[in-house]
């Protein structure tokens, strides 16, 4: 479903307006980058993937009016970009320092050790569950949008998310 705000943004993007590109970046860059970091495990790779998404939007701007859900479209594009990067560079094993950085120790009310444990537990999830958690939590997508991105049903998306949370809980309590 197309949100009214997306509708006007898409129209302006299709017209190639500079301010529309800036608005697109300001609205989605942060969540795209968070999901990309989660998918790729590397800030640098994540930034490359996100840049690829935005540049890709400019490249195909004439076809954007056909997009039904801009948010889902961006995350689906990010997913493909991330898959290409993973295929090209192979998934890397994170160093403890990178894990610590990814765990965002300044999290509200969560001490550093717990944040690192949560991060480890997240990385232990099967990739399909980790991806759903990233899209739901970091990308703030609805299950319907996640379903669109992953080409699965919303119920399947919700179930996988629930399984993922159960695994995280079990890992944290172990």
């Amino acid at each position, binding site marked *: 479903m197309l949100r009214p705000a997306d509708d006007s943004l898409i129209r302006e993007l299709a017209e190639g307006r500079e301010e529309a*590109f*800036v608005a697109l970046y300001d609205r989605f860059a942060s969540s795209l980058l968070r999901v990309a970091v989660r998918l790729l495990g590397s800030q640098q790779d994540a930034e490359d993937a996100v840049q690829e998404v935005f540049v890709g939007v400019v490249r195909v701007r004439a076809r954007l009016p056909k997009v039904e859900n801009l948010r889902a479209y961006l995350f689906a594009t990010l997913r493909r970009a991330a898959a290409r990067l993973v295929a090209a560079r192979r998934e890397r094993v994170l160093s403890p320092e990178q894990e610590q950085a990814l765990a965002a120790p300044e999290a509200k009310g969560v001490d550093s050790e717990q944040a690192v444990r949560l991060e480890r537990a997240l990385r232990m999830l099967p990739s399909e569950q980790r991806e759903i958690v990233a899209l739901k939590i970091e990308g703030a997508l609805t299950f319907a949008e996640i379903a669109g991105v992953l080409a699965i049903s919303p119920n399947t998306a919700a179930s996988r998310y629930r399984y993922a949370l159960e695994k*995280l809980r079990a890992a944290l309590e172990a």
Partner: protein
Amino acid sequence: MEPFDLPPELAEIERRLTDRCHPPPTSVFRERVLSAMRAERSPKRSLWNVAAVLAASVFLCLNFGLSLTNHRAWSEPQWLESADVETSARSIRQRHPDLSAWEAHQFAILLQSPPALPASLGGNRAWEGEESWDMR
């Protein structure tokens, strides 16, 4: 909100996941992405830049190649090309019978290794102009 209720213990995990703070993208990254988007939006200008660089490169290569060709044409008389020292020495003696065999031989050696040309035979200037080879 979506009609998807989580039991309290899972809702707590979700809250902990959501509460994590992430630093926002840096201003450097923002500028990098916006620049890339602008460049993609104006491919014509980018193509012109590429075309200009290519044209300049071709011009420089042609110029360099031409200089090399000219230099070679000036510094190596055709009759010396691909000749060994003995053959060159014989050719030199045929054209300059006043030279001794030893002088012709030394000259041939020098001709095969240009930088070593001594000052008494014109120095490096001998390699720089056609007139230096006007020994016929």
